[in-house]
């Protein structure tokens, strides 16, 4: 493995310590959304990992997507993905975003889940996901950056 220079190490460290997330519902039943919001409450306190919820894709590093991708949303989700600045990651939250879940094969849903539309870095299963699982998934994604 190539050894990293000090500058690269510092930059990676800063990325791991300060992921700003953007929450996007691509057509879910709202179960996963509530759980993502739950993870941001004082009880779980995501800010201790430096995670902040950002309102605009321009500021965000990680896009957290919940729900199956409906046909209406394909165009929009691609556009929002393009609006984010590099380096960017996408986390699929919930069974629907991972694979289509119970909505897979539905007439209005893009077949096969989120990764057929935009590149996905981490999958967090569950219907709905638990807040602990969301935190664990994001932390593991960031841990993989250091390797």
């Amino acid at each position, binding site marked *: 493995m190539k050894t990293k220079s000090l500058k690269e190490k510092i*930059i990676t460290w800063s990325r791991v310590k300060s992921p700003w997330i953007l929450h996007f519902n691509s057509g879910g039943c709202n179960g996963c959304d509530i759980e993502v919001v739950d993870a941001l409450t004082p009880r779980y*306190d995501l800010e*201790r990992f*430096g995670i902040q919820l950002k*309102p*605009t894709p321009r*500021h965000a*590093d990680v896009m957290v997507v919940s729900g199956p991708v409906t046909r209406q949303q394909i165009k929009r989700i691609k556009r929002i993905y393009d609006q984010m600045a590099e*380096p960017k990651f996408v986390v699929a939250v919930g069974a629907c975003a991972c694979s289509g879940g119970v909505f897979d094969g539905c007439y209005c849903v893009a077949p096969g889940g989120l990764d057929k539309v935009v590149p996905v870095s981490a999958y967090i299963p569950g219907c709905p996901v638990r807040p602990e699982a969301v935190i664990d998934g994001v932390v593991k994604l960031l841990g993989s950056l250091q390797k």
Partner: protein
Amino acid sequence: MAIENVLLALFYVLIFPGIWFLATYGMTLEWVDRKLGAVLQNRVGPPWFQPMADFVKLVSKEVIIPKACDTLMFRNLPYFAVAGVTAAMMMIPVWNGALFSFEGDLIAVIYLLTIPTATFFLAGWSSTSPYAAIGSMRVLTQLFAYEVPLMLALIGPAILAGSWNITAIAEHFARNPAYMPAQIPGFLVAVLALQGKLERLPFDMPHAKTEIVGGQFTEYTGRLLAFFNMAVSMEMVVGAALLNAVFLGGGLGLTGIGAFALFMLKTFGVVLLLVVLRVLMARIRIEQMVNFCWQILAPLAMAQIVFDIFLRIKLG
């Protein structure tokens, strides 16, 4: 001689009390702000290096400049914001008087502190996104609301001291500490107006994320956003230092390390007040803010001025 002067000036601008000092202290205060807010909300809060990590991360990110933008303005405005704040700091006493002290520097500081706000407005305007445009209109509306009470509140101590010089005002209070409690209403007005200037919670309509996405910074990414965030943190330091000098007597006649420690302590105290205000209150509407500033804060500051004039005539 000339070389030495240039080096000294560079030291003042870049190290102390210029950009380096402002940036480090600003980041510390930003952390204190977030951590205390978290503790007051029963959370753990971010670790001490959080503002630094945010800054490095943003600087190392890609910079996107939308096609519709006014590129020249969009690119350069963050640096103007930082420069305006740093210039204001040069005129505020940190320990033994300010670097550049002249009659009327209070007015100059107030004007220089308006520059960041003006850049926020232009930033939103030049990015041409509807959310940013609404945000920048709110920045201006808010400016007209809090600027007058802030100015009136700062005039009170100036009248009492008989000088428009910040250092002279601080010295006056250091000589007559008994005048300080009489300035409490003016101080409270100034703290609330400062909260508006820093666009913090009861007055954060310009970048209210639940209403207008990111407000004036909606289109900003990477390095440019990092410098805007930095300018806001620095403005907090300068605002706290200004209140410290004008209302709390600056170094209180101490010199050297003692005065510096006192400066730290009192700016910390002002920031503490700002944090408590932020945590206690929810966002109000823009027109409520204008009403509040013009109907409550401005008359209160006026009353303070009248009282100060009376005090000055009575006590000579």
